């Protein structure tokens, strides 16, 4: 597998970033759901500290991903797409990129507004993005939650489309984001 993208296939770096972020998002949802049901205490504090650290990690990976995308070819969408599908695919991909930034940033601002500074796994304390303020905290809390549900909806569209290509249309759209080569692939 090539390190860089080709017009037909995602390279190793893009794949690594894509799937690492997938795993981290699953971890994030799990941590948030677990913490939500806990009373204030050490356990909740620990889960939320991890949630914030992984969130900052995702933000850093999202920045790398965007940079890498600019330095690389982007594999083309399959020729078989109808114009509205082409539009929908572009829209979903853009939304995913926007959310990869908006989710951690809204969470970071939420922490700043609450007056609980964010640390990356205890190694680095990040600066506060907004001043401490109760109404601001409420606003970012609502935003963070709304974005989380939006992300869930967009991810469902993204996964459904990938599975449709793989299982119904039987093309290489999903395979080209996987390490093993596709059967129709010319390489």
């Amino acid at each position, binding site marked *: 597998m090539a390190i860089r993208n080709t017009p037909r296939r995602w390279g190793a770096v893009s794949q690594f970033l894509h799937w690492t972020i997938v795993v981290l998002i699953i971890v994030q949802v799990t941590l948030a759901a677990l913490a939500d049901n806990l009373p204030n205490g050490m356990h909740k504090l620990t889960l939320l500290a991890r949630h914030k650290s992984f969130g900052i990690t995702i933000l850093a990976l999202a920045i790398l991903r965007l940079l890498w995308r600019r330095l690389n070819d982007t594999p083309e969408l399959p020729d078989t797409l109808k114009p509205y599908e082409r539009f929908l695919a572009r829209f979903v991909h853009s939304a995913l990129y926007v959310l990869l930034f908006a989710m951690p940033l809204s969470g970071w601002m939420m922490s700043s507004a609450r007056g609980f500074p964010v640390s990356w796994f205890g*190694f680095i304390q990040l600066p506060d993005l907004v001043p401490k303020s109760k109404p601001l905290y409420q606003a970012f809390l609502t935003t963070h939650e709304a974005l989380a549900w939006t992300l869930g909806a967009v991810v469902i569209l993204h996964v459904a489309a990938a599975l449709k290509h793989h299982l119904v249309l039987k093309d290489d759209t999903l395979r080209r984001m996987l390490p093993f080569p596709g059967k129709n692939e010319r390489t």
Partner: protein
Amino acid sequence: MLRASLTVICAAALLAAASLTPATVFATPAAAPAAAVTHYTLDPAKSSLEFVFTQAGALNKGHFARFPVSLDFAADNLAASRLEVGVEVTSLDSGDKDRDDTLRSADLFAVAKFPQANFSAAQIVKTAAGYEAAGKLTIRGVTRDVRVPFTFRTASEQGAAVGYMNGKVTIRRLDFGVGQGDWKATDQVGNDVVVSFALRLSAATH
């Protein structure tokens, strides 16, 4: 016999000289063997008592709103100087109501049982940087010896004598049992707590 009388006379002379010396050398009415200490009390509006702790890897700050201070101090009579601080623990404010409630709860400060923390120091010594008060710090019913370095300067403001006392000391919360159960772990809430104070003290008028 002669030797005995001489001894008595010499002793009497020495005694007389000793008792006369202060009065003759320092001929002021208030003269005393050691300088009088000034009694100071806290100006709460212009004083702060803060604590900085690590939560989830980040530094967080809080303060106490009520902490009466009684200081007897004279730079030239440290032997008679002493410091008493009483902290109303329930007046803590970490900037977050939920966190304050947690801090007041039984596993942390247990304010229902231990509403008061105290620092009492009768031993104040001069150091290169200022002074150091060695005393007993009691938090959550546990008393430990603690040395608190501080600086002190006096000023006259609108005719009133005031003192400014500043300092900082790092204590370990678990030394005082602040953190029971889950809170004994220090990976998310650090053991070290930096307590700093900036006090404006009013001198009592005699």
